């Protein structure tokens, strides 16, 4: 556990010694603000809640989370530091979890910095803060799921751009499978059971509940298993490279 934390600390430090962290935080907050207040019509809705804020997160994260995750392993492979890291007395699992946790913490920080939106809602009206809280939990889990996928694609290649594109495509699939315009189209030719099955793989379906203030164990399980599966796959990919 100590080693996981040591690796996470180094990784987190890496974000802040390069411009990555600052550029990311500024852009994330600007975009989150833009989508919430302008595109999401926060003020015109006439309701005290953060629905306009959270509804955009799957799309916002689609671009931004792969940007955070793409360097995790591809950079280690490109620079050759993966050899240094994995010949130290750590297991591959510890290294993967440490690096994942570091980026997840970083995303949590970015998310925490959106606190003014909570204050705004509370000043202007009387929102249900419980719903806001579950919304944040859901958003963090959503970010974690995307991040784990980026972690996996990052392990596949030395090239950060390739890792980025692969993970955007995979995450996009996870959105579209349950995105209502897409499911509406599918209903025309597929049986409802089939559509529901496909939609069950979507982050949209599972993020919905959190936005409504419900923490359903199935939704929780979905996000945690996406994270678990993607990190497990990361391990298999890294071992695969070394096995030759």
């Amino acid at each position, binding site marked *: 556990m*100590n*080693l996981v934390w*040591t*690796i996470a600390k*180094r990784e987190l*430090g*890496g974000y802040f*010694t*390069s411009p990555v962290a600052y550029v990311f935080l500024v852009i994330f907050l600007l975009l989150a603000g833009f989508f919430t207040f302008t595109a999401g019509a926060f003020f015109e809705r006439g309701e005290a809640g953060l629905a306009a804020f959270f509804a955009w997160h799957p799309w916002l994260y689609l671009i931004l989370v792969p940007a955070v995750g793409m360097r995790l392993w591809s950079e280690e492979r490109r*620079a*050759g*530091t993966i*050899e*240094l890291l*994995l*010949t*130290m*007395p*750590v*297991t591959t699992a510890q290294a993967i979890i440490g690096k994942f946790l570091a980026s997840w913490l970083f995303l949590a920080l970015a998310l925490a910095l959106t606190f003014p939106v909570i204050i705004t809602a509370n000043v202007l009206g009387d929102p249900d803060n419980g719903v806001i809280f579950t919304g944040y939990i859901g958003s963090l889990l959503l970010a974690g799921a995307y991040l784990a996928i980026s972690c996996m694609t990052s392990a596949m290649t030395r090239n950060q751009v390739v890792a980025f594109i692969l993970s955007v495509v995979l995450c996009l699939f996870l959105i579209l499978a349950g995105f209502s315009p897409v499911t509406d189209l599918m209903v025309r030719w597929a049986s409802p059971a089939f559509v529901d099955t496909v939609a069950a793989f979507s982050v949209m379906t599972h993020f919905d509940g959190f936005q409504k203030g419900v923490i359903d164990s199935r939704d929780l399980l979905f996000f945690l298993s996406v994270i678990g599966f993607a990190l497990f796959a990361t391990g298999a990919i890294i*071992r695969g490279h*070394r*096995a*030759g």
Partner: protein
Amino acid sequence: MIRIDNLVKTFGAKRAVDGVSFSVERGEVLGFLGPNGAGKSTTMRMITGFYPPSAGKVTVGGHDVTESPLEAKRLIGYLPENAASYPDMTVRGFLEFCAEMRGMDAPARKKALARVVERCFLESVLDQSIDTLSKGYKHRTCLAQALIHDPEVLVLDEPTDGLDPNQKHEVRNLIRELGRTKAVVFSTHILEEVDAACSRAIIIDRGRIVANGTPDELRSLSDVAGAVTLHAQGASEEKLATLGRVEKLNGSFRVYPADKAASAELTRAIVALADREGWKLDALRTEEGHLDEVFRRITLPDTVKRNG
């Protein structure tokens, strides 16, 4: 400390390492020689547990690297090829991180840091970020990382690559000194390093060990080893030819004995001959052989060998 048994590593159809066996004890410095792509780095990556072997076995300090990797890795300090390190960290931050990964607490880290910084001459760059350093400093930073936990086994992949002659000299001295108390394996393709630092050397070519011995033993594999070269006024090739095969160099002659071990007899015979014939001997020496010649002869592809 290191025991390697019939090690094989295949990448697809290519056998990068093909049945390599050797062992290194404490107090030994093993030089690992070979042309580029001979399998040196691959072997070292298997010793350090980065690559799992396709077949065969590596044990370090009695721990099988595949079965109990953590115990084995704890004993090893490793300098990977190209001395990779995290470019955005400072030297201090990087070494602190490595010490922490080796499970040292804060006071132990401080001590270890002071020790390796002195050893590797890093004092002046301690708070610079690694990507601003020159190649020599980057290299020494990575070497410092390998030494930080004072490991019993050192695996160094081309430790002098990219260093200037003074730095090379320092690193070789360091390796020799470390070799007194540790088991050291280092790879190189610079032959003079074998003499400068190794107690034993292995030459590897296309994944197989082609020679194994002390630097002197390897040298004696050379064609000229045991030959006697003389420079004498009045010397004649025909007279010398009665003692062995003669090669004419500019102004001097080199006589090859029929049996390499008989070079002492040959020397005496030449002195007696010169005495009898009234030659004035200016210089006389027994050839020890050249490592580079041995290296070339053993590792050149067969086609090149035949042509010359």
